[in-house]
């Protein structure tokens, strides 16, 4: 029994709650793929296309609904209503505490629904070609549906408990899909790694949700946020919860020091990678922070600060991801590290209070990253490999559609003007508020360090993407056979995503942009960011600055230019099939060599986890003991041994024979006889056992009677 519970009732005098059929029935959007999952699993094999048509139909329906939901939401917002619409049913009642389940529809949820359904639909279509003929084709589509359904359930959740459920479901689906080809050990290892790494963070989420429940007395997202913002939950509790939730973000969204599972997750089929990286899995962490922003904003005291845990993690991640992307030869791994880096941007933005900028970047990133991933899948479909150095090169003529869309994605990722990535990245940099030197104002604090990190990453991003483009599409083909362009079921989704990667940025022109009518400015902010509601903290918006935009573009161009000079000029001059300079910096400079080695070894993080932390428990502890034994103890023993022999002889006759042997023998005898005594209890006679049982039960009963 649904009871419409309009948030505006609680926030009377503030924003009016939106209403509308599609908003109220948004739960249908996740229901379609959820039902599709069951249908495909049960009947998929009987369908002519192995169940893929069910998945596409369901996700297509979800997409149509999400589009209509978005339109209705926008019209409501434009009409002046901006409050979240929540509907809930009582899920279970425990000790008078009713725990609800339902949907919470606001700008954030609508935006996420849209992104997830668009990317998921295109991935579904793409997959019908990409995994055609796979032995677990039906199974693949079933879990693709469940993956989509879980993420949609997660983003529309109205309680933290539901979010937990969706979060775990997403994790399980990613495990299944990453390990889709589990017969190869690498793939199943990668799936396990993803799953276990995520378990670390899941504990953080469970603890965080529990803390919030005990702090705020409710699981409701709105209630929790309100408790944090109004201060009815003490700051210490809020901080503790925010830290626990941050742990969840670190693992789920591949943030620094638990990001290692993300590149390995490339073992899964490419469409899954696209889905994981663009729309579902990894953005769950970002969404969670955005959803519970009151907790984070108050917990970390984001306003008026210059550094905090969230921003620092984001900043480090963005740098680490970007640097690691340089040394990868696997095209998908480059993109994976690029995702790590871009997610770092989003976390950084959330950390500095640029809420809208983070979600805007999530929005644009979803399209260009999906475009890049599907593009890399198209390439590997043609050359049957992911290794850029061995099997690619010169593909721009053979695969014109893939090449062009990949270029669009690259430029958008590098953040060059008019592409979507430019607008969102620039907004994040603006939001740091650390740009006093560029003549801007506003913002929630002075995060100068974060601005610097973002700038450096902008340069690095341009550079590593230039490297990928050269190695893949320029020079001469280094692989075997003749690569061909992929079919329309692959290229059409690519072009759609490419188109979105160009235009997605236009929905949020900065304020005071002047080149477009003022009514076009900051549409995204207007539609997505909750204003005048009790569950969202009051955040300040920085005013954009032309100077900063120009500087960041110049920085990105410097990165691209450097890489261009190295690859397109120097390397190409060596040979069209060369992939690096024979006398490159790594062969000339020891420092460069060291840096290269560190990057190839991924900052030794995997080594730290598997060899040091895990291995410490099983191997090296023993090895260390053995080494100590051989080198230290043995020497001491040998030295001491010879001299001890003489002393030992004396001791043997005087002490050992008389005292020690006596004690030892006595101990043995005592053990022997006591064992003999105890053995008698174990007679094998059932009646004695029964007697003991009866007596014991009687004594216990007597105790109960006396006590009660």
């Amino acid at each position, binding site marked *: 029994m649904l009871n419409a519970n309009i948030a505006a009732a609680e926030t009377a005098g503030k924003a009016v709650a939106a209403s509308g059929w599609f908003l109220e029935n948004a739960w249908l959007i996740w229901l379609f793929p959820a039902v599709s999952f069951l249908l495909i699993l049960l009947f998929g094999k009987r369908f002519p296309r192995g169940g893929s048509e069910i998945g596409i139909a369901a996700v297509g329906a979800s997409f149509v609904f999400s589009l209509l939901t978005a339109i209705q939401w926008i019209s409501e917002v434009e009409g002046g209503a901006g409050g979240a619409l929540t509907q809930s049913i009582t899920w279970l009642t425990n000790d008078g505490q009713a725990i609800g389940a339902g949907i919470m529809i606001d700008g954030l949820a609508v935006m996420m629904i849209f992104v997830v359904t668009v990317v998921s639909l295109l991935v579904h279509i793409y997959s019908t070609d990409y995994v055609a003929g796979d032995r677990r084709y039906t199974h693949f589509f079933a879990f693709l549906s469940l993956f989509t359904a879980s993420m949609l359930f997660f983003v529309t959740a109205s309680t933290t408990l539901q979010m937990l459920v969706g979060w775990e479901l997403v994790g399980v689906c990613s495990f299944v899909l990453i390990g889709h080809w589990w017969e190869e050990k690498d793939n199943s290892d990668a799936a396990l790694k993803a799953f276990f790494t995520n378990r670390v963070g899941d504990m953080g989420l469970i603890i965080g949700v529990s803390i919030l429940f005990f702090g705020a007395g409710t699981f409701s997202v709105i209630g929790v946020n309100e408790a944090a913002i109004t201060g009815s939950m003490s700051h210490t509790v809020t901080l503790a919860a925010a830290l626990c939730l941050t742990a969840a973000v670190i693992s789920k969204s591949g943030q620094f020091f638990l990001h290692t599972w993300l590149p390995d997750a490339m073992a899964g089929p490419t469409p899954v990678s696209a889905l994981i990286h663009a729309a579902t899995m990894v953005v769950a962490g970002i969404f969670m922070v955005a959803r519970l922003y009151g907790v984070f904003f108050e917990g970390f005291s984001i306003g008026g600060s210059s550094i905090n845990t969230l921003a620092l993690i984001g900043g480090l991640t963005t740098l680490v991801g970007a640097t690691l992307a340089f040394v990868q030869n696997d095209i998908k791994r480059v993109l994976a590290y690029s995702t790590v880096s871009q997610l770092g941007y989003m976390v950084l933005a959330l950390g500095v209070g640029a809420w809208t900028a983070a979600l805007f970047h999530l929005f644009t990133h979803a399209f260009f990253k999906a475009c890049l991933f599907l593009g890399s899948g198209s390439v590997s479909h043609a050359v049957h490999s992911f290794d850029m150095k061995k099997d690619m090169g010169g593909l721009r003529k053979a695969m014109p559609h893939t090449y062009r869309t990949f270029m669009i994605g690259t430029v958008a990722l590098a953040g060059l003007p008019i592409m979507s990535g430019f607008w969102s990245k620039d907004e994040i940099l603006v939001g740091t508020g650390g740009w006093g030197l560029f003549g801007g104002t506003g913002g929630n604090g002075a995060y100068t360090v974060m601005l610097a990190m973002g700038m450096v990453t902008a340069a690095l991003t341009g550079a590593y993407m230039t490297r990928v483009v050269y190695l893949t599409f320029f020079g001469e083909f280094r692989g075997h056979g003749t690569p061909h362009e992929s079919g329309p079921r692959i290229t059409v989704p690519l072009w759609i995503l490419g188109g979105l990667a160009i235009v997605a940025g236009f929905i949020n022109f900065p304020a005071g942009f002047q080149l477009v009518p003022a009514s076009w400015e900051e549409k995204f902010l207007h539609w997505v960011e909750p204003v005048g509601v009790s569950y969202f903290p009051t955040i300040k918006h920085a005013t954009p600055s032309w100077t900063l935009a120009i500087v960041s573009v110049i920085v990105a161009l410097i990165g691209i230019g450097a890489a261009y000079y190295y690859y397109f000029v120097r390397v190409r001059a060596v040979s069209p099939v060369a992939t690096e300079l024979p006398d490159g910096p790594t062969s000339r400079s020891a420092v460069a060599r060291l840096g290269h080695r560190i990057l190839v070894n991924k900052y030794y993080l995997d080594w730290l986890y598997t060899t040091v932390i895990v291995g410490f428990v099983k191997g090296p502890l023993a090895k260390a003991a053995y080494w100590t034994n051989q080198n230290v103890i043995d020497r001491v023993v040998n030295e001491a041994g010879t001299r001890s022999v003489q002393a030992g002889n004396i001791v043997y006759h005087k002490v050992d024979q008389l005292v020690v042997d006596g004690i030892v023998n006595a101990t043995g005898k005592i053990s022997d006889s006591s064992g003999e005594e105890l053995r008698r209890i174990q007679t094998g006679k059932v009646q004695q056992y029964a007697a003991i049982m009866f007596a014991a039960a*009687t004594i216990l009963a007597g105790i109960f009677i006396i006590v009660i």
Partner: protein
Amino acid sequence: MIAEHVAFGIIAAVMVASALRVVTTRDIMHAALYLVIVLAGVAALFLLVGAEFTGITQVLIYIGAVIVLFLFGIMLTRTDFDQDEETDHKRKFPAILTALLLLAVMIGALVDRFEDVKLDANLPGGQTPQTTAQVSDELFSQYIVPFEAVSVLLLAALIGAIVIARREEGG
């Protein structure tokens, strides 16, 4: 009312005495016959409190069937040692102790809880006899499923007993 008490007292005394003989006599045949007395006493008690059907069933099944089974068992397993003093363990003390302890606990609990509760307390005119019709109504309506289950149990026990006790081919 006095008559009831007297009747109960006599039956109870006979039952306790017989029960003690059941567990102490050295002749296994005598033990079986004393058991008949105890079971008959139980049946009499059932009649005394108005549980007619159960009392009759007690007589039919226990005295009519179970005791006969016991007698068969005794005949088939008769050995010399039944007659000598080895029917009991040498050391009876733990068994006596356990039984007495149990008795003390139970008597303590019962006296404490039901000190002088009258059996017919809730019925001013004495208890109404629970008729056989009532028993059958309950048994075949509310307790029909357990009833069926028990009938299956009996069948299983029948087959089980045959399988266990069956002489192997040529054995």
